[in-house]
């Protein structure tokens, strides 16, 4: 039975500090990491989640709405989503969201998804590289009262309201069938996220939240005032909407630091001891001598 329906999808993404490639420059004298020196990036597995949603849209039609919670600067990951083909984006930002643990975060995102309404599929990356918890996706799906499919590697089939998903773990794989709506958390091996499209980069170059108007006016003084810029962007569908706690109708007790049952008691920086090292020249002679030395010490047989 061929399906002729389309799908409304919500993709949840996060802007994270890039903890993957810690180079010498971001190390402080005491051996700890200078967090502010790390670039802010699109959480890698969230790009895989976005790609999975975009592929469904390409094949069946529908809409892809990308939502992020974060500081005003997190609008950057929303623009990057537009460059790749998202139809709509939404920034959740409010001082009252700050300091949220996974429970408070999942509550905030759940409120946003419910307010958007009318969704068939929710996608998240498996986990974010700044915390590696993998908790927010399952916590949201519990709050929405829908099934979750974590570790999603690919969509085997999608027919009407029925989806079959392949899940991938370090020790094997599994195929599960479920009825929509449901939430998927997507692994990094799922797909190769598409690069931004040149056409869309131009189209959405000016896409911005009202919180960014002042910066934008600095770059584009020809707009003269925030009002004129707002009117221009609004007419061209380039205004990125921002929702606060009030817009969500959220229970303030469940938000941010106050709504977070976990508390950080203490933080220790990891400092590893330095080993005395011998520099080997990167030449064939130098390396041959190194191998000789290792053979002599019975390190290499």
């Amino acid at each position, binding site marked *: 039975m061929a399906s002729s329906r389309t799908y409304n999808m919500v993709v949840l993404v996060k802007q994270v500090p890039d*903890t993957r*490639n810690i180079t010498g420059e971001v190390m402080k004298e005491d051996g700890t990491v200078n967090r502010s020196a790390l670039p802010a990036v699109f959480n890698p597995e969230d790009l895989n989640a976005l790609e999975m949603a975009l592929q469904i849209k390409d094949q069946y039609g529908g809409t892809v709405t990308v939502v992020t919670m974060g500081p005003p600067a997190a609008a950057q990951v929303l623009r990057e989503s537009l460059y790749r083909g998202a139809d709509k984006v939404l920034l959740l930002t409010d001082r009252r969201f700050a300091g949220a643990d996974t429970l408070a975060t999942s509550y905030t995102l759940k409120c946003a998804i419910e307010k958007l309404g009318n969704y068939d599929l929710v996608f998240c990356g498996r986990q974010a590289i700044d915390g*590696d918890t993998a908790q927010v996706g399952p916590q949201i799906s*519990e709050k929405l009262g829908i099934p979750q499919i974590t570790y999603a590697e690919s969509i085997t089939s999608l027919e009407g309201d029925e989806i079959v998903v392949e899940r991938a773990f370090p020790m094997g794989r599994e195929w599960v069938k479920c009825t929509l709506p449901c939430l998927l958390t997507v692994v*990094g091996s799922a797909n190769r996220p598409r690069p931004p499209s040149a056409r869309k980069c131009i189209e959405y170059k000016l896409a911005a939240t009202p919180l960014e108007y002042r910066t934008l006016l600095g770059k584009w003084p020809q707009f003269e005032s925030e009002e004129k810029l707002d009117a221009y962007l609004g007419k061209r569908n380039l205004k990125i909407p921002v929702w606060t706690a009030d817009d969500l109708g959220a229970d303030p007790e469940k938000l941010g630091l106050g709504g977070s049952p976990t508390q950080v008691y203490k933080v220790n920086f990891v400092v590893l001891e330095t080993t005395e*090292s011998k520099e080997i020249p990167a030449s*064939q002679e130098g390396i041959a001598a190194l191998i000789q030395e290792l053979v002599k010490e019975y390190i290499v047989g």
Partner: protein
Amino acid sequence: MNDRRRQTTRDLRRSVVGGQEESNMTDNRDVWVFVEQEDGRIADISVELLGKAQELARQLNSRVCGLLCGYQLGDLAEQAIRQGADWVFVADHAELEDYRTLPYARIASDLVRGRQPYIFLLGASPIGRDLAPRIASAVRCGLTADCTDLQIGDYESKKEKKVYKDLLYQIRPAFGGNIIATIVNPHTRPQMATVREGVMRRQEPDPARTGGIENVVLHFEERDLALKVLSREMRESKVNLKGALVVVAGGAGVGSRENFQLVEDLAHLLGGEVGASRAAVDAGWVSREHQVGQTGTTVRPRLYIAAGISGAVQHRAGMQESSKIIAINTDPNAPIFQVAHYKIVGDVEKVLPMLIKALHDKAK
């Protein structure tokens, strides 16, 4: 106060509907463990957790309870008792044969609401990481992922001007492994945590231990059973990083899947295993089983070659105890050089073929 019940294993099978027996929250300091199984025995991670739970329960003067879900569980409850459980909740039902989030979460959440354990531990396995957040969201309690240590201690809340006695310190690496955070849940119960495999000491089973077994009466709603497992393929890992004498590991600096072949060739030539940093795994050059570091495997080989690995703490923590470390990186200030015995500043693409050639020449 001393709630250790030491019945023989067989004589106390009673049925209680989860959620109906309210217990007094202030008295209950039980430490619960979700017991995973594989092929008719208790999974390694759960054995480790039952051992750790015993240690915590001793300090709290309470008991260890296991939660065992599945179908035709045989003597698994007795196995859990021998590994450290004083009490085992058993949910044995055909619908529980395959792990599925919703029915498992329903059982655990109902039971947790009814009995209010003090602490609830799960493995940071694909199952534990799927199940724990669902339960924590349902009962609205704090949950810490991927702990590498657990301790009991006091916590002073400066804001509340109050000291909380005997909380669970949930200790975990964060921020790419560059910090170690201690997390507490002062207000919500249970204090939930998932724990990394391989970090808690494994205890030998004690055949003399006794404990109680309680069958849980099960209620599923139709929507709990909506998701069906169609098929499953599990494989034994062929990668043996833990036991390898030589590990050749590649990172972002390797540059491409094609260049990663050089890492594999060198490992093969040295009779060693292929390792990888997270960046190389994320790039898809090599499977996750090869990952070395805090979120991968900890290795202590005789020789570790780090090719194009910058050396985030996350990675170094998993390999710094290797007897000899050779690091190759284009960045002379890369943190990996801090733990290396031999430092080669250069491009992996050029240096690895030199190493391969030197080994070939040696063999002649």
